[in-house]
């Protein structure tokens, strides 16, 4: 698929913005999670677990899906392809895995928000290290994905090598 350079730049900007924005949002989420498990103030703790759910739905999920969709568009409109280069494959796997876990984890965040909203729930039951663990691991994964995108380590998949051989034969007289 070919695209005018202007559109291609716009698509790349959208992908970088969504992906790095997702990384930043997860970093902020880690900060919230740290406050949730360490703050001595019960209202602050409850507030943290209440705000996590809408943050996930209105910030993390849209950024994750935008990153995934714009990444797929990038693979279609550039020579990198989707399964030609190992770094693209790993980025795709990281993106899909992190998005799926995030979507599943919204259920846990909903439960935590429910507990936080319940004035009869004990604070020890409201506090949970789970968001910190999940967000911390997500942060590591997204840093790895960003590093792969910047360094683009060489390495063609078997499919990529076949494609390269075909294009070489096609260009030879």
């Amino acid at each position, binding site marked *: 698929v070919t695209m005018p350079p202007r559109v291609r730049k716009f698509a790349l900007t959208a992908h970088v913005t969504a992906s790095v924005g997702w990384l930043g949002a997860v970093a902020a989420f880690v900060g919230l999670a740290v406050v949730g498990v360490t703050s001595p103030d019960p209202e602050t703790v409850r507030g943290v677990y209440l705000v996590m759910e809408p943050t996930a739905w209105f910030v993390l999920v849209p950024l994750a899906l935008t990153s995934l969709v714009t990444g797929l568009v990038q693979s279609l409109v550039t020579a990198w392809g989707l399964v030609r280069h190992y770094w693209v494959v790993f980025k795709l796997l990281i993106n899909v895995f992190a998005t799926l876990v995030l979507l599943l984890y919204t259920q846990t965040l909903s439960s935590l928000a429910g507990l936080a909203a319940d004035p009869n729930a004990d604070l*020890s039951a409201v506090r949970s290290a789970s968001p910190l663990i999940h967000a911390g691991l997500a942060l590591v994964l997204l840093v790895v994905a960003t590093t792969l995108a910047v360094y683009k380590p060489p390495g063609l998949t078997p499919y990529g090598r076949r494609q390269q051989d075909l294009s070489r034969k096609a260009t030879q007289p």
Partner: protein
Amino acid sequence: VTSEGSDTGGTPRWVKVFGLVAVVAVVVVVVVLIVGRGGHGPSRHSRGGDAPAGNTFGAHTGSHAGVAQEQP
């Protein structure tokens, strides 16, 4: 892409390392899910579930710890 030599050779070492790390991570996740069955996921946080009695990051036993103190 970088040098042709890198792309035309076999599987790069970094891919093998990444693949190994990914396999180990998947195995760890599966083991955690199996060992902690019922203790992972949303049900863990439901009322009457096996939610932890305290947190490992410093449970509060001071004046803010109880629900009674939270209510006006």
